């Protein structure tokens, strides 16, 4: 057991995976001697050597592409893309190859790779460093898209992602990389993929979210408790394939659904959840589904970033709105 930040939990999971499976290799820009720009791989190169932890040239498409080749050979590449804003260059490799190698060869070749990237805003980062493009990857059959929201879940889900026989895109909410610590059992115990987590049980409204903004949702739930509202807070965690059953059960129970994400509104992953609610839980709803998201705009540079990100207050407002329906 150790008290860790989220980024330390990521490092612990990488270390555990390198230790337990000789097929695991960590690769990416500056992941070696520098330990990664967020220090997610700190010390791994020194401990496991340059045959296990590889500094790559600045080459995002190449990093994804060689990971496909490594994975087809039975290696387990865990590749880091320094910021999600630079991950677009990997889409060709991820969508055309990683996601479909199993299918197109009827299982002869497979692609057990992980593509990790810090994502999301709120850290006063430069341009292209604050995006949330999880929905783009969640639209691709054959991929898994996983987003942890706490140190424990970062450790357990990353281990699962690395052990999974299929390609996993693992987005780490950098706003909460060091926001808080949590006790993490470093026992190599993985958490299930494709499973949503109920972070707070409640009876009146289901607040569905993932990533850093789950913290704001939990805080909003506390505020609302003071107003007599019992909010249930859910962390989707694995967006693809996602655990609709847990989400729908919650919405059926509470009759109200608020979805919160940092990504732009239109065709964000919240739209998928709202559509699913309309298909499967409409008869239980007492209020329209509400989405709390940024508008369809480019993430502003840091001086106006707070105008973009959903806040605790925004979540509270949405909860009050759906609670007005009886």
């Amino acid at each position: 057991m150790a008290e860790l930040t989220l980024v330390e939990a990521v490092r612990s999971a990488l270390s555990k995976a390198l230790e337990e499976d000789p097929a695991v290799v960590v690769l990416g820009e500056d992941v070696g001697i520098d330990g990664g720009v967020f220090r997610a791989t700190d010390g791994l190169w020194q401990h496991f050597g340059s045959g296990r932890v590889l500094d790559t040239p600045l080459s995002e498409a190449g990093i994804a592409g060689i990971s496909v080749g490594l994975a087809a050979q039975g290696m387990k590449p865990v590749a880091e893309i320094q910021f999600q804003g630079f991950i677009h260059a990997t889409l060709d490799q991820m969508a055309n190859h990683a996601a479909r190698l199993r299918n197109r060869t009827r299982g002869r070749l497979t692609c057990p790779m992980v593509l990790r990237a810090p994502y999301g805003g709120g850290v006063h980062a430069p341009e292209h460093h604050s995006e949330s493009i999880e929905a783009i990857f969640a639209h691709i059959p054959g991929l898994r898209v996983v987003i942890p929201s706490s140190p424990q879940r970062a450790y357990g889900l990353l281990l699962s992602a690395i052990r999974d026989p299929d390609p996993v895109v693992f987005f780490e909410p950098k706003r909460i990389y060091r926001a808080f610590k949590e006790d993490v059992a470093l026992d190599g115990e993985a958490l299930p993929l494709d499973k949503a987590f109920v972070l707070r049980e409640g009876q009146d409204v289901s607040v569905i979210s993932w990533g850093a903004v789950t913290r704001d949702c939990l805080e909003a739930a506390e505020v609302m408790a003071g107003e007599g509202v019992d909010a249930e807070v859910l962390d989707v965690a694995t967006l693809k394939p996602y655990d609709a059953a847990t989400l729908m059960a919650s919405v059926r129970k509470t009759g109200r659904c608020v979805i919160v994400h940092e990504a732009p509104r239109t065709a964000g992953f919240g739209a998928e959840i709202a559509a699913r609610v309309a298909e499967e839980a409409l008869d239980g709803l007492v209020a329209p589904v509400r989405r709390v998201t940024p508008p369809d705009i480019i993430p502003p540079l840091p001086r106006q970033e707070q105008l973009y990100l959903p806040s605790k207050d925004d979540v509270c407002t949405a909860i009050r709105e759906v609670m007005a329906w009886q």
Partner: protein
Amino acid sequence: MPLLGRELIGMSDDRMQAAVDAAEFRIPFKRYLSADGTLADAAPGFASDRSELVRLYEGMLRTRAFDTEAIALQRTGRLGTYASSLGQEAVAIGVAAAMRPEDVLVPSFREHGAQIWRGVRMEELFLYWGGDERGSDFSGPREDFPVCVPVGTQYCHGVGVGLAFSLRHEDRCSVVVGGDGSTSRGDFHEAMNMAGVWKVPAVFVVNNNQWAISVPRAAQTAAQTLAQKAIGAGIPGEQVDGCDVIAVRDAVERALDRGRRGEGATLIECLTYRLSDHTTSDDATRYREDAEVSSHWPEEPTVRLRTLLTEAHGWSRDEEEALRKEINGAVKAASDAYLQIDPQPATAIVDYTYAELPTDLKAVRDQLAER
């Protein structure tokens, strides 16, 4: 052991003078077998071995017969869009003949000849081009990559495969094949660059058939050769006559030897000509003159090798006829076998999306199973 990591090279001090060349490069060109069938004295040893030459000749004829049958099947509605390798058989066969079985081929979509040589069954290839994924679950070289359609993306896969070999200290190489158009893409450069840094045992073969669908070589790049694109990545690049199967095989063999010795990757540009349309969906008369195509027929790879066999090794008419008969029979048998293959069950469209199907897809599968 390849260099992985940080053995950095310091700046040398002997460049204090103002006007010296910072670097110097050359791109060699090799041809051993001329279009008229003459063999150069400097030709490699296997070029005087009759049985080896017959094997190469047979491989090229088989490739062409496969091609002919594939187009016939497509034209009669029994195969999908198909990419012919007419006139470029020496690239596929030269590459495959140089490789060892344990090496891994990472093809584009015009290397049927190499795939067949390495053990992919012709009915499996027909099956793939006929629109059935099982064609890429071939029984032959199980670690070889399937056909790659997104042009140029395969180069990085070859680097990953080669990197796996060097990380595991295995005495194997990957061989990637692409076309002239693919050398304009970033993936090509990123792959070569990484292979250069890590001395990856990979061979990059470019089949420069002068046309990327309708875009001619001159409109593809201002570079004098495609081989010189290797120089920017710090790996050697060379050019060969891609219609000379001896030169192709020799160049790939030398490159594979370099890879196995831990000296890293090589780029080989094979100069060929696409005698066919891009694919069966293409009509090349829209953008290129018949006269240009005709002018390249005398260079095609099979006749020159037959001339050499006939003149230097007493290859007889009877042998030629017997070989063609055997090949045509095998291709016809493969074509017949392909047409007899039962379709996949409907459930196959979901079954390979993940190792274990998620809940939603299980439900879809159950519905399909009831059909």
